[in-house]
């Protein structure tokens, strides 16, 4: 790990950029309020417009962008470490698909109307079920895990189409197509509060994996001979990803590319050791999604663009460039 000594500097830069992005995120919105008005709003008698916009709309939006971005970055880094596959990401294991299926069932079969927090709850349940299914059929090896993930993704997609077909609402397919593209706009604190415990629990699970992931870079047999319980490691990563990404997807829709790109972007700076990538990747994911969310608010479109549209538009060319770049570097 020759480049590992750069690690603290990258963390430092990311930690400097994040507050700047947060400040920008609080200042930018559909209603243009000068920064001074926003500051005054905190001091004036409440409720006032600036305070309402900040506390009920922009702060939750910013928090959600950070949490979802960090979750995707962390999940991507953990999965790429576990599968030793640079193409791994949360969507690969069917977790995002499962979460989307759960959320759709909650929305279109009246559960959300009866109990407003049913959407995140069922999203988490769907993610857990999909993650468990992937783990059940893919436990015999890394390749099988990827294949099982692909199969479960397909199953979730079919389930989604089936649910939309049976949905009594004729606009279901239209609504869900846009919802799946991802957004963190106009979520309320109660929805965020319900998802947070699950996301934190997922992060907690992943916090126990760095040593095992490091040893796994030597190969599965070598890692096991060094005392790594592979089954436990897989279970920890899958549970962590299912909980955090499942809850995040239920809140914000399926946002692609952040989980794929974030680990790749921090690797040149911190080296290839999985344990050193996890935290920077999470921070970078958070920064990436927050900046994307600021961009869709600034872009003068009649309807706000969806997060997934922009992450894919920006992420794809960069990822292609990265792939070519890596190929040139490798012997």
């Amino acid at each position, binding site marked *: 790990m020759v480049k590992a000594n750069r690690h603290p500097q990258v963390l430092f830069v990311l930690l400097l950029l994040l507050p700047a992005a947060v400040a920008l995120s609080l200042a930018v*919105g*559909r*209603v243009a309020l000068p920064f001074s008005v926003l500051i005054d709003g905190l001091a004036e008698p*409440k*409720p*006032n*417009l600036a305070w*309402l*916009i900040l506390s*009920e*709309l*922009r702060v939750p939006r910013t928090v959600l962008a950070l949490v979802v971005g960090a979750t995707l970055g962390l999940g991507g880094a953990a999965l790429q470490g576990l599968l030793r596959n640079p193409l791994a990401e949360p969507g690969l294991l069917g977790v995002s698909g499962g979460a989307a299926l759960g959320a759709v069932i909650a*929305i*279109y*079969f*009246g559960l*959300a*109307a009866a109990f*407003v927090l049913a*959407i995140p709850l069922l999203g988490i349940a769907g993610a857990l079920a999909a993650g468990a299914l992937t783990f059940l059929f893919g436990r015999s090896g890394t390749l099988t895990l990827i294949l099982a993930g692909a199969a479960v993704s397909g199953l979730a997609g079919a389930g989604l189409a089936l649910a939309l077909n049976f*949905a*009594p*609402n*004729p*606009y*279901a397919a*239209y*609504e*869900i197509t*846009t*919802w799946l593209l991802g957004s963190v*706009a*106009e979520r*309320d*604190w*109660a929805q965020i509060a319900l998802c947070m415990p699950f996301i934190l629990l997922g992060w907690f699970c992943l916090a126990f994996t760095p040593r095992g992931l490091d040893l796994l870079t030597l190969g599965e047999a070598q890692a096991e001979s060094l005392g790594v319980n592979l089954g436990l490691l897989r279970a920890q990563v899958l549970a962590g990803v299912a909980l955090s990404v499942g809850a995040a997807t239920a809140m914000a829709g399926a946002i692609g590319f952040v989980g794929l790109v974030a680990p790749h972007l921090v690797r040149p700076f911190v080296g290839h050791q999985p344990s050193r990538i996890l935290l920077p990747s999470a921070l970078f994911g958070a920064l990436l999604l927050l900046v994307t969310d600021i961009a869709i608010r600034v872009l003068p479109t*009649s*309807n*706000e663009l969806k997060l997934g549209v922009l992450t894919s538009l920006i992420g794809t060319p960069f990822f292609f460039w990265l792939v070519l770049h890596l190929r040139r570097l490798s012997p």
Partner: protein
Amino acid sequence: MRLARFRACLALAGALFLTLTPVGGTLSPPGVQPDGPEPPAAAHGKPTRIMSLMLCNDLLLLMLVPPERIASITYLAHDAVEALMPGADRGVPVNYGTAEDVLLQRPDLILAGTYSAPMARRLARRAGARVVEVPATNSFEDIRRVVRQVGAAVGEPERAEALLAGMDVKLARLAAERAARPLRVVAWSGGNSVPGKGTLTDAIITVSGAENIAAKLPDTRYGSFGLEELLAARPDAILQGETRWTGPSLRDSQTAHPLIDRYWRGRVIGYPDAAYTCGLPQSADAAVALRAVFRGLPAESPAW
């Protein structure tokens, strides 16, 4: 919002036509000129097997002609009929906008929408039906034009005039007794597609004596109107399309933001989507109903 979606539905129906229209065989029954000027109804007698391919035409048709002269209305019509004229579609067959329906039901007149008209015309040659394309309505002037057009096509111009006269009486009454305080309102069912200027909803709100704050959007038809803008504009009331006819949807959770409940409690007004989507004589009733609801609203504005 609803209108845009209905249009999407209709476009879908149009696409269905495209795929199901028989290829080849352009045999035209003698005497039928599908694309030519419409012959006066009197020349052929009144049409007796009228088929409607658009929800708004369904509703108009049910008001203009007795059920026995209707070949079919669309399967989408039932909920809107229940909302506007309960029971009026009893015993009337439905169609799913497919080519098979047209060929099977052998209508003598097809009332098509903008999106279904080209396909209906192509099909009409084989079915032997006349096609009348009914445009969408975005104002009360549009309503007068369309009601007269359909009335003439189905051979019931007097009935159409009577319906319009009823509408105009209500509109005149609304105009005579202006609302004391013009309320500032917005039709907001989630911020993605809010009707601005040039929409039927805007026309109904204006006639009811209120001001549609979304009419100021630079986007003149449907635009986005986020919660931030809603807070900044602070409307006196929020109109929301009723969802009880369509079943649960994502928009329920979008409209259930705690801010709405906290600051607009008692100021959220449900309205029947159908009367706002389709320009009908009942659109005047919708405006009358809206005026009555506005009267009952608390006088002071939402506080902050």
